[in-house]
């Protein structure tokens, strides 16, 4: 019994009904399908091979030249295809826009976008766990301006400050010298003690008068005699800081004044230009 007969016998044993059924091919297919199929498959294979295969020899060496040639050809073709009167029209503006429209366009777009989505931004803003007084930020600028306007402006000239620092140095020097003589020269003790006691008894007004009576020569003499380099540097640095602070402190200007000054500077610059 060959394979075919064996299979038929097996089927007969399982289902006589099915074994008696004639095997028919019920499905139809296009005419000559199997005749053209091999070539179709080979064409498809070559297509897929082309997709994944290497480029033809010299492809990249000649690519740039071929591309430029094609661009030129297409440009020429396009130019030839377009009538002269139509080409001329292309460069004439048909529609007008307001002057400087495009200069401010981006700003307008930003403003419009913010206005459009402002409610969304506010709605989606993350909640802060801290609380602030009602209308705090609305009132803050006015409060700050009020404080600045009422602030006392003390303007000290650099010379006066230098004098003040120098006078203080002289007084301290005198006190230190008195202490030295008190310990080293008991004979002079009584005189120095008198000077110190006088200094202690001075009120502010008297102290100011004493200071104003000191000459520049006396001050510089003291510094040369008793001051060391570190003291001088310290005094100079302190004066420099005071200058910077005063520059800020000297300008409790209102916005209008500040703007006036800026405008003056700009005007002067414009004129000088």
């Amino acid at each position: 019994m060959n394979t075919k007969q064996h299979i038929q016998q097996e089927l007969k044993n399982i289902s006589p009904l099915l074994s008696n059924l004639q095997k028919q091919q019920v499905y139809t297919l296009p005419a000559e399908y199997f005749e053209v199929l091999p070539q179709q498959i080979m064409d498809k294979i070559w297509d897929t091979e082309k997709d994944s295969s290497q480029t033809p020899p010299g492809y990249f060496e000649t690519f740039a030249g071929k591309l430029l040639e094609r661009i030129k050809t297409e440009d020429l073709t396009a130019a030839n295809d377009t009538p002269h009167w139509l080409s001329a029209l292309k460069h004439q503006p048909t529609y007008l826009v307001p002057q400087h429209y495009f200069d401010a366009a981006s700003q307008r777009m930003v403003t419009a976008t913010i206005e459009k989505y402002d409610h969304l931004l506010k709605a989606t803003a993350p909640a802060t766990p801290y609380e602030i007084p009602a209308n705090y930020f609305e009132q803050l600028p006015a409060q700050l301006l009020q404080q600045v306007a009422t602030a006392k402006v003390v303007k000290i000239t650099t010379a006066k400050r230098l004098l003040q620092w120098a006078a203080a140095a002289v007084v301290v020097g005198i006190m230190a010298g008195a202490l030295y003589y008190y310990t080293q020269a008991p004979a002079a003790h009584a005189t120095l003690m008198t000077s110190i006691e006088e200094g202690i008894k001075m009120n502010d007004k008297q102290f100011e008068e004493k200071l104003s009576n000191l000459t520049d020569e006396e001050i510089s003499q003291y510094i040369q005699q008793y001051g060391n380099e570190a003291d001088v540097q310290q005094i100079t640095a302190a004066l420099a800081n005071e200058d910077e602070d005063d520059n800020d402190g000297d300008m409790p200007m209102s916005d209008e004044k500040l703007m006036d000054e800026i405008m003056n500077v700009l005007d002067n610059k414009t004129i000088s230009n």
Partner: protein
Amino acid sequence: MYWFFCLSPCLQPMTSQHPDDQELLAAFKLASTRERAFTGIIKKYQEKLYWHIRRMVVVHEDADDVLQNLFIKVWKGLDNFREDSQLYTWLYRIATNECLTFLEQQKKRASISLSNEENGLSNQIAAQKNFDGKKAEWKLQLAMQQLPEKQRIVFNLRYYDEMPYEEMSRVLETSEGALKASYHHAVKKIEDYILNH
């Protein structure tokens, strides 16, 4: 190498007498005869594979797609084909896997489609040209669609292709005993369907 000379353009086209697989595979290894050898492989197996696929996917266009993709994969993989197994077995294995993959994809497409009913294989059979639900041969086709896919493949290979269990075992990588049981169940289910419809 007789067939190889027969494939030469100056000679007569190939007849129904196909060259054997060893000759085809040997010619495929040579660059000069590669394409011609592969055309020979297609011509030799296209009909058997087509009908194997068609009975599984029903619609001709689907069968054509699956078959063409199958041969493209064979072209790409034939260099790595180990000749210790038969080409015929290897091709059937690929065809079966391609069918199962296709049907799986079709199921996925149908699951997201609103027209599940129209996409069903039974409905596609009913839509075939010359369909007559009263005729036994069409009832057989409808009955086959009621089977689980792997059981349907076993039935196809045994009933239509008359494949021995030994060879089927290599194609489906399943034991002969399991295949015999599967075929038995398939035949019984089909008989029940025909008797009740």
